[in-house]
């Protein structure tokens, strides 16, 4: 119990000191802080016990301010090491230790007292100023270190991105010399890539890439599209970063799709040709024979007179079926195209569109007319058919021209003065017109030609298919 009674006030005092220390944020856990405090204690002991109480006087005179000056050493040390709190704590401790000196030691004149107070004020002032200064510098250093750490993290992240990037990435200086290459780029261009001219490595100078003029860059058996941009580095130096985006797979897929589309087109056209041929060979021939024979029969004197009109009527019926079949055959694949060639088929097509839709169409054929390969003639016909169908359906044109020129290449041009194709029409799969254009392009590409679709001035559309005359087969055209 007694021990508890004694312990309680002691605990309370300790608690208060700890609270004060907490408010002051004294570095109580640092042993060097305690060493400093012991230093202060020693100076105070020297002053009050040795000099004042024991009146031990050295053989020389010690001015009073020397003691304060001595106290500056631990205070400044504390400021440098523990910041403003450590310094103020130490200064207060020193002040507390020095108080008995002027309270209990005699011979204190008012002048002396003011000197003492001034000294202690300086001591505390120094503690605050130096402490604060040290602390602000410490914080600045911490901030600088933090920023450095952040930039190192960013740098290493960029490095990782740069190196782990699947796409080859190169950095060149303004002159086009490669300064850096990531793993993929090194793999593609060889380990000696850094230090060499970009144009030596990939055959294209950096300026051309920056201009965005390179859309296809074959390097080492693969195909890339370079994505170049300028990096402004702090020192005013300009670097160029080039990301090579790999198009090889995409191109491969596109080629496969094209081959598939071409295959489909060929299959469809073969089917149509076979179907048209079969319809012609069997049903049409048999029916025309029937028409003629029924007509002959209706004229036969041996036929009872009341049956003659019936036979004649059935003959007419068969004749109508022949007409219907001919229309179907023509729709599948016009026989004129195979028998007489593209020019005759175009003339027929133009005449049909003209009479069916009342469209004003001019057909102009120029150059040395020859029969072309089957595929070539079919392509010319189908492109014209699709283009004219677009004109009739969408263009609201008053004048349409179809030009077919036989030169080194065969050029089919269809122009109209209608409302033109909206930009989206070329790619939009939703509208029949868009698909039609895609189909035309597929057909023309299939035989190694090119298709151009563009606005026609002042208004309207121009569709131009250019195909290589190449394989000219068979006889001159039917004229």
């Amino acid at each position, binding site marked *: 119990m007694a021990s508890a009674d004694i312990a309680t006030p002691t605990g309370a005092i300790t608690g208060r000191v700890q609270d004060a220390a907490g408010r002051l944020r004294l570095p109580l856990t640092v042993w060097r802080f305690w060493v400093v405090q012991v230093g202060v204690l020693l100076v105070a002991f020297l002053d009050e016990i040795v000099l004042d109480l024991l009146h031990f006087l050295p053989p020389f005179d010690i001015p009073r301010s020397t003691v304060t000056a001595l106290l500056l050493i631990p205070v400044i040390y504390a400021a440098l090491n523990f910041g403003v709190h450590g310094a103020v704590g130490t200064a207060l401790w020193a002040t507390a230790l020095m108080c008995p000196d002027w309270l209990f030691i005699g011979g204190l004149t008012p002048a002396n007292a003011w000197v003492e107070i001034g000294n202690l004020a300086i001591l505390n002032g120094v503690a605050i100023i130096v402490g604060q200064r040290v602390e602000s510098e410490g914080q600045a250093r911490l901030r600088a270190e933090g920023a450095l750490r952040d930039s190192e993290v960013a740098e290493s992240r960029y490095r990782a991105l740069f190196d782990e990037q699947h796409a080859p990435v190169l950095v060149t200086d303004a002159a086009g010399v490669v300064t850096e290459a990531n793993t993929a780029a090194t793999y593609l261009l060889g380990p000696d890539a850094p230090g060499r001219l970009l144009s030596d490595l990939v055959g294209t100078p950096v300026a051309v890439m920056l201009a965005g003029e390179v859309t296809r860059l074959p390097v080492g058996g693969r195909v890339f599209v370079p994505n170049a941009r300028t990096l402004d580095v702090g020192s005013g130096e300009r670097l160029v970063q080039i990301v090579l985006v790999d198009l090889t797979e995409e191109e491969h897929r596109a080629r496969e799709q094209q081959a598939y589309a071409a295959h489909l087109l060929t299959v469809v056209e073969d089917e149509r040709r076979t179907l048209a041929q079969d319809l012609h060979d069997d049903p049409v*021939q048999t029916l025309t024979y029937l028409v003629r*024979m029924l*007509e*002959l029969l209706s004229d036969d004197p041996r036929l009872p007179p009341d049956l003659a009109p019936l036979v004649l009527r059935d003959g007419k019926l068969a004749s109508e079926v022949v007409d219907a079949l001919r229309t179907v055959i023509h729709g599948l694949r016009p*026989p004129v195209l195979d*028998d007489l060639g593209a020019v005759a088929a175009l003339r027929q097509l133009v*005449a049909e569109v003209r009479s069916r839709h009342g469209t004003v169409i001019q*057909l102009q054929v120029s150059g040395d007319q020859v029969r072309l390969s089957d595929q070539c003639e079919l392509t010319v016909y189908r492109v014209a058919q699709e283009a004219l169908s677009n004109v009739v359906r969408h263009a609201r044109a008053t004048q349409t021209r179809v030009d077919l020129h036989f030169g080194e290449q065969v050029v089919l041009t269809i122009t109209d003065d209608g409302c033109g194709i909206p930009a989206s029409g070329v790619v939009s799969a939703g509208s029949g017109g868009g698909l039609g254009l895609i189909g035309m392009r597929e057909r023309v590409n299939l035989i190694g030609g090119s298709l151009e679709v563009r606005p026609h001035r002042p208004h309207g559309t121009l569709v131009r298919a250019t195909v290589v005359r190449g394989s000219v087969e068979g006889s001159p055209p*039917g004229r």
Partner: protein
Amino acid sequence: MDTPVIRVVVVDDHALHRDGTRQILDAYADLQVVGDASSGEVALAVVNQLRPDVVLMDIRLPGMNGIEVTRRLTRDHPDVRVLMVSAYDEDEYVRGALEAGAAGYLSKTAPGKELVQAVRSVARGTSVLQSGLTARLLLSSRQPGHGAADLSERELAVLTLLAEGLHNREIAAQLSISTRTVDRHCDNIYAKLGVGSRTEAVVRAISIRLLTVDDGQR
């Protein structure tokens, strides 16, 4: 009247049609089918050997088409008359056939009597177009002086309008001349082309390339 028999060769790749045509023609005493062929190549050989008066020619044949065969036949045998008989009546076929030198064009569905008349006509040296075909053909004159016949510019103009199927009165109105003048022009045209009718005049004009079938700007 002792009419000489007209010797006919039938070219068609369908046996049904060859036999049917033979059946129709052989019923007439003045017509005789002396041979037939199922392809263009065979036709050339058969005609070469038999020298018929008239060849009935299908257009769609395996290999060389009927128009091409006609071109060769009329070039090698100017005295042999070719009458196109086709299941198709597209203008382009008619035009191609006439330009290749065919003397006439008939549909396969034309009545037997019309076929017989056509064979007789072309054998006589006149030309035949199935009714309705002439008017549909839109023709234009070539540059004057190109053809063998020496037609005047005005005669060429009249011929062009004839080819479009206009009657004399309409031609007169269009050219602002009298009907009588048109008649006189027609007589001159027939005389110069050595023909007896307007259809023949048009066909002859096409075959000697005095007229070409137009690209049809209407």
